[in-house]
């Protein structure tokens, strides 16, 4: 009985199966012929370079994706080293493929936000209710008292494809575990306070301020702004004060005790560590012996 059923089923099913098989092989044959006839010769080097790239398609190199960049770099070797997330490692690999020598371009660059003022540190003259973006807010002169500090509307967060930036209490904060160094945030910031810095160490010392206001007005509007007092420059050559603002010279970056002293002596505690395992920044108007 059962056998008869199965036989009947088979009787009605086999033409369908056969037709599908025939159609399938027919299409396979057509596609096979087409793939041979329409074969496009691709330089194997393009594929190799593509493999060497991080495949994030972030666009930092100025091309739409890693595929396009791989093709372009093969044709024009001058484009080598444009891959920000890959850094020197990737450039080296590509140079090997292209039989080129790559000069040492230094360590991998990562962004540093040159502002450390959270909402409670800042001064506001009025409440901003316009378009919620830094670019729009920046067009307004008095959106916040400090004309140099982080606006905190998150243009950089939106630009980041890797979810590595967030606004914490009105300050853009980088998650260095997620950051690939693609430079999108530093391009997005209308106030140019996100700088790409060569990370020689896991944590980098930095002057987290860009204010060129005089000491008096900086003190009046921000609790943690650089007043250009110059104590750090006296301690170490790493720091230089120009236009009421201390800057850190990353070309000769090196942290010794002198720099630690400079950090501790800074009256507004604007010199801080930024990086993966950066210690909690010191708070201004506290004894300098805080934990690191």
């Amino acid at each position, binding site marked *: 009985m059962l056998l008869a059923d199965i036989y009947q089923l088979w009787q009605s099913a086999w*033409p369908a199966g056969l*037709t*599908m098989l025939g*159609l399938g092989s027919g*299409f396979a044959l*057509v596609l096979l012929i*087409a793939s041979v006839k329409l*074969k496009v010769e691709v330089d194997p080097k393009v594929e190799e370079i593509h493999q060497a790239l991080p495949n994030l398609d972030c666009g930092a190199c100025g091309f739409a994706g890693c595929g396009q960049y791989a093709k372009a770099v093969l044709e024009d070797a001058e484009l080598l080293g444009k891959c920000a997330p890959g850094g020197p490692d990737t450039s080296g690999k590509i140079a090997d493929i292209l039989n080129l020598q790559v000069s040492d371009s230094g360590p991998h660059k990562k962004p540093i936000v040159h502002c450390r003022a959270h909402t409670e540190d800042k001064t506001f003259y009025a409440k901003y209710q316009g378009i919620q973006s830094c670019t729009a807010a920046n067009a307004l002169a008095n959106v916040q008292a400090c004309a140099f500090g982080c606006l905190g509307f998150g243009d950089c967060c939106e630009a980041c494809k890797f979810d590595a930036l967030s606004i914490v209490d009105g300050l853009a904060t980088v998650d260095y575990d997620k950051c690939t160094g693609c430079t999108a945030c530093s391009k997005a910031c209308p106030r140019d306070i996100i700088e790409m810095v060569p990370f020689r160490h896991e944590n980098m010392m930095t002057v987290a301020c860009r204010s060129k206001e005089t000491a008096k007005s900086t003190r009046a509007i921000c609790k943690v702004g650089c007043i250009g007092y110059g104590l750090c420059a006296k301690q170490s050559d790493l720091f230089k004060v120009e236009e009421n603002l201390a800057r850190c010279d990353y070309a000769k970056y090196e942290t010794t005790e002198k720099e630690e002293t400079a950090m501790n002596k800074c009256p507004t505690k604007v010199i801080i560590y930024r990086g993966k395992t950066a210690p909690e920044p010191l708070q201004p108007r506290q004894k300098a012996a805080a934990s690191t």
Partner: protein
Amino acid sequence: MDTLSILLMGFISIVVVNNLVFTKFLGICPYLGVSGRIDMAFGMGLAVTFVVTLSGTLTWLIDHLLLIGTSLEVTRYICFILVIAGAVQLVEMYLRKFFPSLYESFGIFLPLITTNCAILGLCLLISLEGINSLLEAVVLSFGAGIGFTMAICIMAGIRENLDLADVPDCLKGAPITLITAGLLAMAFMGFAGMIR
């Protein structure tokens, strides 16, 4: 009616009155996904038009020459999927060889057309309506592609302006897009009943 007017009526019907996107809600995925910018939407529309014309014609041929003769209409779905996937592959290879710049600009959209249900829907619609002449099937397929292009371009135009509009927070992004799609479909209901 003579052949020409039947063809013309069929074309207008599938483009405007029975537009696949607006009345049957087929192919919504690319319709919402690729309608961000007008040039991309147009490219997608053209690619779909090309593939839908090719696969509509091919499926009609297979249906009439093979499946109906051997009373294997049950395998239509599977066969049609096979044809569409094959056609897309073929188109991709062809474009890559002869129009590399076009291939580059289509990018990922080309293989994605395989899963565009407007195409399978149109192929099934043709056999469902019992279209008996090859010419009519070709015109209907082409019209469906044109209809899709029109729909996605209108949508892209609206969405480009929507970016500048002050949309309430809770409706930003997908919700307002879906509402727009619904309103557009309602507007196109005005054509309903004009031609069958």
